[in-house]
């Protein structure tokens, strides 16, 4: 009996350790991260890999680090993380690499950490695209207000910088940049205040996912839909609803599903074929003489004109968006 148990246990242990496990750590509970999770799960299913997906309630670097350490302790075969703070995460990423676990970043990078690859939106480029659209919408002149949820997070700063560089040299004036600290209700309040303070306002630029709909709500209720242009980020259902109504003129749809999917695929390859062999296949960039590997997942610019095409594409990916 005892022998049988021992054999059984060994078999169970062998099976458990045979299955490859890949961990993905996101930033917060948000639709965006639900799509990342869908991508992670889909890739795990396709490759026969066990995947663990974790997000803290709200952005919380300590919760991320604790989970990262627990993944290291469990000897996962690969870890992808979207660090809420690029520097705070460095020592723990180094720990993972020393333990022989490949680490990559997704959505948000930590270039100094020694991670092998970054997979995500090039936020500066995406902001630049948003700026170009704004130029076109306003014919190169007008007054705008920017709404964001952070003035310290890199993704917010890079988007705003890209946007500013794209409208540089035109007669577009940024009157104000408003920080609501990721509170949708405060974003509405600030958009109302801005609309009132600047009666000659021509457009809003929304940096975070909820900024666009907050601005759209205010513009629509003030009866200025279409008159005050809105360019924003992400493709949550409420944003797409406003795009459909023509209240939002353009939104930069990121590809979170792709980020999740490609993270698992990349880590799988690293585990199966070795890190260097995998890197050899990836797009290289040269930064100050050092070779770096970045996969830019790009953006889908969704407008009232191409909305139906976009929805069709998402449907094909297995992410039906209903609203």
């Amino acid at each position, binding site marked *: 009996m005892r022998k049988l148990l021992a054999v059984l246990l060994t078999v169970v242990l062998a099976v458990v350790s045979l299955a490859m496990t890949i961990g993905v750590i996101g930033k*917060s*509970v*948000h*639709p*965006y*991260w*639900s799509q990342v999770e869908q991508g992670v799960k889909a890739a795990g299913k396709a490759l026969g890999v066990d995947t663990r997906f974790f997000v803290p*309630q*709200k952005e919380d670097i300590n919760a991320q680090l604790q989970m990262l350490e627990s993944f290291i302790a469990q000897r996962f075969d690969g870890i992808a993380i979207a660090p809420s703070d690029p520097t705070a995460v460095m020592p723990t990423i180094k720990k993972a690499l020393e333990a022989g676990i490949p680490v990559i970043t997704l959505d948000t990078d930590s270039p100094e950490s020694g991670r092998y690859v970054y997979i995500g939106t090039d936020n500066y480029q995406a902001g630049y695209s948003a700026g170009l659209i704004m130029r076109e919408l306003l014919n190169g002149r007008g007054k705008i207000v920017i709404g964001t949820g952070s*003035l310290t997070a890199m993704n917010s700063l890079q988007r705003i910088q890209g946007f500013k560089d794209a409208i540089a040299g035109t007669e577009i004036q940024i009157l*104000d*940049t*408003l*920080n609501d*600290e*990721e*509170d*949708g*209700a*405060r974003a*509405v*309040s*600030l958009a*109302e*205040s*801005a*609309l*009132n*303070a600047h*009666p000659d306002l021509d457009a809003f630029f929304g940096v975070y996912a*909820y900024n666009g*709909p*907050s601005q759209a*709500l205010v513009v629509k*209720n*003030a009866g200025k839909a279409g008159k005050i242009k809105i360019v924003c980020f992400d493709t*949550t*259902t*409420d944003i797409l*609803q406003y795009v459909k109504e023509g209240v939002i003129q353009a939104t930069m749809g990121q590809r979170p599903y792709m980020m999740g999917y490609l993270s698992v695929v990349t880590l799988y390859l690293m585990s199966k074929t070795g890190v260097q062999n995998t890197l050899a296949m990836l797009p290289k960039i040269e930064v100050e003489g050092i070779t770096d590997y970045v996969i830019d997942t790009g953006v889908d610019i969704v407008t009232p004109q191409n909305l139906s095409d976009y929805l069709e594409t998402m449907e094909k990916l297995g992410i039906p968006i209903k*609203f």
Partner: protein
Amino acid sequence: MVVLEGEKTLIAGKKQRSFKELGPLVALMSLAIFTTVLNPRFLTAFNLQALGRQIAIFGLLAIGETFVIISGGGAIDLSPGSVVALTGVMVAWLMTHGVSVWISLFLILLFSLGIGAWHGVFVTKLKVPAFIITLGTLTIARGMAAVITRGWPVINLPGSFLKIGQADFLKIPVPVWILIGVTLIADFFLRKTVYGKHLRASGGNEIAARFSGVNVDAVRTIAFMVSGFLAGLVGVIVAARLSQGQPGVGSMYELYAIASTVIGGTSLTGGEGSVLGAIIGASIISLLWNALVLLNVSTYWHNVVIGIVIVVAVTLDIVRRRFVSK
């Protein structure tokens, strides 16, 4: 003779009242005038309506917090901000799953009363510090909001429901009407009824109150229920205002509510407080949010200014009251 004495206390009470909210009221008026002088657009109807909706949100939470803090025994409610998020998400979820608007509202308000009762039982019967049990709810409610939505905003709410947050009646936003109604009722209860007297007695001197037959436990539990109920009401208003149930709203609202209450002259040790004061406090904080944009203050400085104003307002009031009582 007795009548005379009663009249005397009433007159004395009136005198005290006119003094108690004077400080914060002057501060509010000064802020409003200062903003108007620098940017006359402060007084546009659009802006005042927006401001009113904001004041309603913070004011209702501050009234609830006032009741809890007056009840004494170190009572404080840290849960309102998270309860706003949870009830907003729940009411949206119910309505998008075929429950009628009125029934959804009824269920949510009942649920938020339940949260208050839950706090009351823990604090009075199990002797768990209010700070801890409401901190627990803060965390649980935030988590539940995320569980229900997975972070997705719950959209496509019925138009009749959105009126609660977005419509105006006689040019005054509906949330402001709700605030006026609740303020009148709460002020009446606090100042004119036996319950109000017992509430102040419980917070002022708990042992004396118990000896004179006040059911301190019941009084305190009811105070927590008032706070829970109002948090649920604000959750409904915010969801209607945003046209969606959003799990991320309401962060730090409990702290704004507590600050509003203290600015309005409620003592954190319990026993005394004022509903009108709490509304004035909430108005000051809401006005700051609004005025800093109108005054073109860099957004980097917003929180610094709000923090400084809270500290200055409370300190001035404490100093002034000490001065008056001398």
